[in-house]
């Protein structure tokens, strides 16, 4: 019984201690991932942009990213999504 309480206390403490660290890591980097959620988020960002060169670039990069995703080239997809994100932040 004492061992059971002790082990629960240890694991409980470890879990609580690691929570802020994992939370911080998860929020450290906001890079877009090549998946449907990331694609939708980028499209929402682009919709909010004023018409112009940056928006055209972002749309073009997203089109390439979508093509790469269809070809299952996730690395290239992520690169083009990143390019699109940079264009939205100009």
């Amino acid at each position, binding site marked *: 019984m004492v061992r059971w309480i002790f082990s629960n206390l240890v694991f409980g403490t470890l879990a609580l201690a690691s929570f802020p660290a994992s939370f911080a890591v998860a*929020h450290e980097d*906001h890079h877009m991932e090549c998946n449907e959620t990331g694609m*939708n*988020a980028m499209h*929402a*960002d682009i*919709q*909010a942009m*004023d018409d112009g060169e940056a928006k055209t670039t972002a749309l073009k990069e997203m089109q390439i990213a979508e093509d790469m995703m269809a070809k299952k080239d996730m690395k290239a997809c992520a690169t083009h999504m990143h390019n699109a994100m940079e264009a939205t*932040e100009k």
Partner: protein
Amino acid sequence: MSDLAASRMGMRWLIVTLAAGALLIAVVAAGLVYMGSFDVAADKPHSQPVFWLMDTVRERSVAVRAAGIAVPGDLADAKRIASGAAQYDEMCSLCHLAPGMKRTEISRGLYPRAPELRRKSELTPAEQFWVVKHGLKMTGMPAWGVTHDDELLWDVVAFLRKLPDLTAEQYQTLVKSAPKSHDEMMHEMMMDDGHGHDDQPKQ
């Protein structure tokens, strides 16, 4: 059949056809609503035509309602701008960001996206005041007029006119130079009018 009778018959058919068409559209629309066909998820953007429609409705609604608002002549006043900066930093920057500020989690998740106000706005000062005071339905923009009086909101507008010209350092300096903190301003406002603004002209 006389021409008059034929014309009446034609008119009656037209009315019946239009009524039946309208009824059919209403039934289909009700069915779509009931079946939950419209996806309200904020992580799925509207199609371009829907986005355009919502955007245009919002733009026109604000323009028409802001048309009669009298803009104070002292929006360039340094004290007003500094006061607006403190309020902006407290109330707006989380969603609308600020010079030198990285995008926040809330700014990434809002739909439609809250505009980054450090970029030049096409809204007039009267339109900005109206939006800040009344908020915008289905955007996440709150009606600050519920808790703030018009003077404080004009301070925010004064700051918004200045915001696109500011660097990150200038922004921070301006926020720190505010004559009072946001909480002090709110307290003073409450003391001044017992949080009633009913005696002020509605804008």
